[in-house]
């Protein structure tokens, strides 16, 4: 971007500048829920938006954004920030830096830290870490005490502290009775349960999808029904109790089928999908590269195609990354020993703009999956680009090209499945919470 060198104060990822008075000129503003898609000037003053302002105050920092897009801030509904406990892999701050670099203004972080985020004190502490950054860190608290799957956490207190969702992600809630009660109780409080859908015994010891590939590689397999069985269990409990359920990182054809069917029947189910499950299948494991080891695992081609279809038609409501940082030494191990997971914050937008928009879906649909739906699921206010709204937005250069180079990641970890991929479309900055970062 031409003007960035003139305003270096905005380019610091460690110390985003206060967004006192900024003018973006000539960008395409895209905010489908407000019915906006137009080239316009956008002034941010004291954190509030004004579109095509009458006048631009003295001392305003100006950016020429012709050829760029401005959308409401992107939100990643499923990330692991690892802190407290595994700061070698990621911290809340480094994870927020990765989010900023990737064009997100908000993330929802999972509670499978050490100790797990199962009380209001810890939840508040996590949020505090991101105070000086333009990232809303929304904490999804553990559903059960210490994530042990037995007793419910103090849900009311946590909801008072701002929590809107609970999960034992990393693991499912094994007991159907506990799951039922967690869903009912959360529902009473206007919150919902996120389920990492898995039958732990069916997938136990598995390292990749169970298929001719796992057989050929001699790796213990995780069958697709290991996920789908739990998806169906969640749907049945949701129907029985009337409580909402959100299904994390859906990866199988049958899961998509049952979720679509449940939605058709009016059951309160939402679901998310990750870029790696949309773009890769289990043959990627053939060289035993642990950057293709994740949970749920990369599935068969038919599963991948079904996920794409579900992503297009809205069966899968949300596009999220399941950003799961691991230090290189953990991943540089034997395939069956290495931990599951890949990072995603810094590649998600490029992946989406290169591979999904506009060939598979239009930009408005993508924004539905990455701006509006994730916040609706968490009962958060949805940002918009109308005059008077607080500035919560993402700047995009749709023509910028890059090759994914893990060495340049802001995340503390480099375990990406997309190293070396050429991508077109890149985040150029974010503005949120009265702060701006503009690369």
């Amino acid at each position: 971007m031409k003007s960035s060198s003139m305003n270096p104060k905005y380019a610091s990822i460690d110390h985003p500048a206060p967004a006192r008075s900024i003018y973006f000129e000539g960008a395409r503003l895209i905010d489908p829920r407000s019915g906006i898609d137009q080239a316009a000037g956008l002034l941010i003053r004291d954190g509030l938006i004004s579109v095509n302002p009458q006048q631009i105050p003295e001392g305003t920092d100006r950016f020429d954004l012709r050829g760029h897009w401005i959308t409401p801030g992107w939100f990643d509904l499923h990330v692991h920030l690892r802190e407290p406990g595994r700061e070698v892999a990621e911290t809340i701050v480094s994870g927020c830096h990765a989010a900023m670099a990737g064009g997100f203004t908000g993330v929802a972080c999972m509670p499978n830290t050490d100790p797990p985020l199962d009380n209001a004190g810890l939840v508040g502490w996590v949020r505090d870490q991101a105070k000086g950054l333009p990232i809303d860190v929304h904490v999804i608290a553990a559903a059960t005490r210490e994530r042990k799957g037995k007793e419910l956490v103090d849900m009311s207190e946590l909801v008072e502290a701002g929590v809107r969702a609970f999960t034992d992600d990393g693991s499912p809630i094994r007991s159907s009775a506990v799951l039922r009660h967690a869903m009912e109780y959360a529902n009473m409080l206007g919150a919902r349960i996120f389920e990492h859908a898995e039958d732990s015994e069916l997938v136990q010891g598995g390292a990749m999808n169970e298929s001719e590939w796992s057989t050929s590689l001699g790796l213990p397999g995780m069958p697709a029904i290991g996920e789908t069985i739990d998806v169906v269990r969640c749907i049945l409990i949701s129907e029985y109790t009337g409580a909402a359920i959100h299904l994390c990182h859906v990866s199988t054809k049958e899961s998509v089928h049952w979720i679509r069917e449940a939605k058709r029947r009016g059951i309160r189910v939402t679901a998310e999908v990750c870029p790696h499950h949309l773009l890769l299948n289990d043959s990627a494991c053939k060289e035993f590269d642990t950057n293709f080891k994740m949970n749920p695992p990369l599935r068969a081609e038919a599963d991948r195609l079904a996920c794409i279809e579900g992503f297009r038609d809205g069966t899968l409501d949300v596009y999220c990354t399941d950003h799961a940082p691991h230090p290189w030494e953990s991943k540089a191990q034997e395939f069956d020993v290495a931990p599951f997971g890949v990072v995603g914050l810094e590649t998600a937008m490029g992946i989406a703009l290169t591979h999904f928009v506009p060939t598979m879906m239009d930009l408005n649909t993508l924004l539905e999956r990455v701006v509006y739906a994730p916040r609706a699921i968490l009962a958060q206010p949805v940002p918009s680009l109308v005059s008077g709204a607080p500035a919560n937005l993402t700047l995009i250069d749709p023509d910028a090209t890059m090759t994914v180079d893990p060495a340049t990641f802001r995340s503390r970890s480099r375990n990406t499945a997309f190293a070396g991929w050429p991508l077109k479309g890149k985040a150029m900055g974010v503005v949120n919470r009265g702060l701006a970062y503009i690369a």
Partner: protein
Amino acid sequence: MSLLSHKHMLGLRDYSEQDITIILDTAERMREILDRPVKKVPTLRGVTVVNLFFESSTRTRTSFELAEKRLSADTLNFSASGSAVEKGETLLDTARNIEAMRIDVVVMRHKSPGSPHFLARHLDSIIVNAGDGRHEHPTQALLDMLTLREKFGTLKGLRVCLVGDILHSRVAMSNIVGLKTMGANVVLCGPATLIPRGIERFGVEITHSLDDAIQHCDALNILRIQLERQQSGLFPSLREYQKYFGLTRERLDKAPNPLTVLHPGPINRGVEITSDVADGEHSVILRQVTNGVAVRMAVLYLLAGGRAEPESK
């Protein structure tokens, strides 16, 4: 330098019919060396081989060690028990230490599938897979093929049945891909719980009846059955396994043609195979052991030697 189209022997999946034929032909010449009074040639003099066994396997290690000695390589043994691995050293660190010692060939046994591929990515040395988990055990399959070729003259059109725990067997996968490459037909026979998912994509036939397999096959390769599989619920009892999948004299006698019986060892006598069969006239189990040394000599020679003829005086 390698006479094969591969630098390593990680598995048979990528080996062509030509490569496998070269190995088997070379192994036949190596076997002649083993029958000589002085069983040693200088072919790999100056080549250092480390036998890196993270999992104990006396017979495979001994076979490799003997093959190395017959070829005059310098041999080093590394076994995981009592080593740095027990103190938590990673495979990568172990690899780097090997590299620093300037080893030429690493013969490796490890419980993790793909671990030889992992080392091959991080080292310059030649890697020979001596068994990686349930993935592959290429030299075992090669010695099985050598033994069958010796008996039948060719592998083309042969019907070979692998019997037992296909799911957990590294021998099975290497045999399937190797035999298919060489034009043999492969039949798998075992309880449904021990047949891995998607295996039919490899062009094999599957049966759950050993009696049926015996009617239609030329050779049976009986795999070892492990007691812990019963404990993890994969079959009801050893007694039941023995009754339906154990190879007995009565079963064998119902074959229309005499069958050749192989077993990779060690044998659970009276479980997957009875002693009268294991020691009987159809058994080539001891011949497999001899051929094992010859095959390993051939593989090491073809990968690490290749300059001098094995016959050099």
